[in-house]
């Protein structure tokens, strides 16, 4: 089991924004999390990735209880998230963004920078080669040297996925990867996710584009007002009357 979220709860005062949510994910799963705005999906992501502390509940990743591990430690363990509003390093180019994500860089230590420049330079060449592969894979070559702040919304989503890949993530949590992305690019992005999944990377995806999501995921969870109200096969979930009542209001797009 890759990821086990157990009884996760987060309350602000009396308001339980995430209420006793449990989700389990097998290796190589692609799982969707849907729900109306304010259902607590992004908060759940922050809890799982250590950006927020929960009131109760636990997260187990690849057999290890994460406890109070920081966001940094969780990411190092291979549990990497993206953000609903992309957080690219806006003054840096696409290539620099990806280079920054490479783990264990010698040159990130000032002493190595000054006293072991040869080794640092060699590692930079290796990292640059990996970055080129990622750029080619995500078809970002045309904008590789553009400051990432000037990319389109879809390109920023791709860049965030690329950065997550560069870290060597084992499970990538995507927060609305299709929001603001044109339909053609959504198709391509879905294809990339399938390809990466075939290489062994798991995905947990928050998304409002139910049409695109239901084609992609193996299983879907539905949240409403902090609670899980339904889960299972995408088709079954989308026709569940409880879900239609809470979220879709009658029609599936």
């Amino acid at each position, binding site marked *: 089991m890759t990821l086990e979220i157990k009884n996760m709860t987060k309350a602000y005062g009396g308001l339980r924004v995430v209420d006793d949510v449990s989700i389990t994910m097998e290796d190589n799963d692609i799982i969707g999390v849907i729900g109306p705005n304010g259902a607590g999906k992004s908060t759940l992501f922050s809890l799982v990735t250590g950006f927020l502390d929960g009131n109760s509940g636990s997260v187990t990743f690849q057999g290890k209880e994460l406890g109070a591990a920081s966001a940094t430690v969780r990411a190092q363990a291979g549990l990497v998230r993206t953000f609903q509003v992309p*957080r690219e390093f806006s003054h840096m180019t696409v290539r*620099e963004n990806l280079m920054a994500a490479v783990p264990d860089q010698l*040159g990130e230590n*000032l002493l190595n920078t*000054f006293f072991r420049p040869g080794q640092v330079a060699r590692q930079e060449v290796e990292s640059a080669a990996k970055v080129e592969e990622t750029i080619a894979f995500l078809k970002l070559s045309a904008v590789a040297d553009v400051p990432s702040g000037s990319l389109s919304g879809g390109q920023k989503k791709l860049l965030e996925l690329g950065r997550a890949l560069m870290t060597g993530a084992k499970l990538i949590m995507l927060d609305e990867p299709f929001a603001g992305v044109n339909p053609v690019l959504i198709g391509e992005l879905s294809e990339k996710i399938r390809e990466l999944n075939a290489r062994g990377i798991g995905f947990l995806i928050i998304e409002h584009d139910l049409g695109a999501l239901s084609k992609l995921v193996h299983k879907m969870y539905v949240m409403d007002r902090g609670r899980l109200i339904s889960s299972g096969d995408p088709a079954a979930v989308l026709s569940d009357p409880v879900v239609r009542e809470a979220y879709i209001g009658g029609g599936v797009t």
Partner: protein
Amino acid sequence: MEAYLIAIGIFAGIYLLLALGLNLQFGMTGLINFGHVGFFCIGAYTSALLATNGVPVALSLAAGGFAAMLAAWPLGVVSIRLREDYFAIASLGFSEIVRLVVTSEGWLTKGVQGIPGIPRIFPGVSSQMQSMLMFGLVMVLCLLAILAMRRIVKSPFGRMIEAIRDNEEAVRSLGKEPAGFKMQVLLLGSLLAGVAGGLYAHYIGYISPDQFIPFITFQIWMAIIMGGVGRISGTVAGVIILMTFLEGSRFLRDVAPFIPEVAMASIRLGVIGLALMLFTIYRPQGLMGDYTKR
């Protein structure tokens, strides 16, 4: 006139060391340090006290830089994880504490009387030669600092601090801890400020607490903002602009001799303030700012 220009050159070099440190901290990393003068003060007092008690000047200068760096460490430990604006307040408080300690611990620092008779760096030469050698030393140190900054900018470390400036949470999401990088940047900037403090103390030969007021910090801030935040060339340009205003406004007296000395000091400040405002309105990226980005 020549002696005057050399004196200005020495001060400009000392300011440049301070500004390069602050540019690394704020310009490249986004660390808002309002307490830079505190490290300048620690460097000056450490070097002055050691040298007046017989320690060789070269050693005392190095000790000044090291002491400033050492003093930055506890500040970093308690406050580097604060949000940037809170770190600004903590660092400003730190520099004021340093000044108050120096003022009140008279047994060590001679309090408000200050420390006179700080040995020159080059003993046994004429005062003109002293200035020339001092100018040379300051310029060499500035050059070394600039080369070090360039190396940093081009390194993976430089890339990571730029990423931290752009978005700290995204850095954490990639499994990197911003605090460690910010700490190193704080220490390095303080080392530069400490060395600058030592040079200052030995050059003017007398230091007292009222030379280390927060206004010095903000002069350095003005320099890097006017020159272009985050760029080494901008830092150099900014210091030149600052010195031009600081010193140039002195000559206003020749043009307008009827203005009393006290009013003149205020006018000089006003002129710099006006320049800063005009820069932020018409050239927000500074003189050497990067116009391809932002």
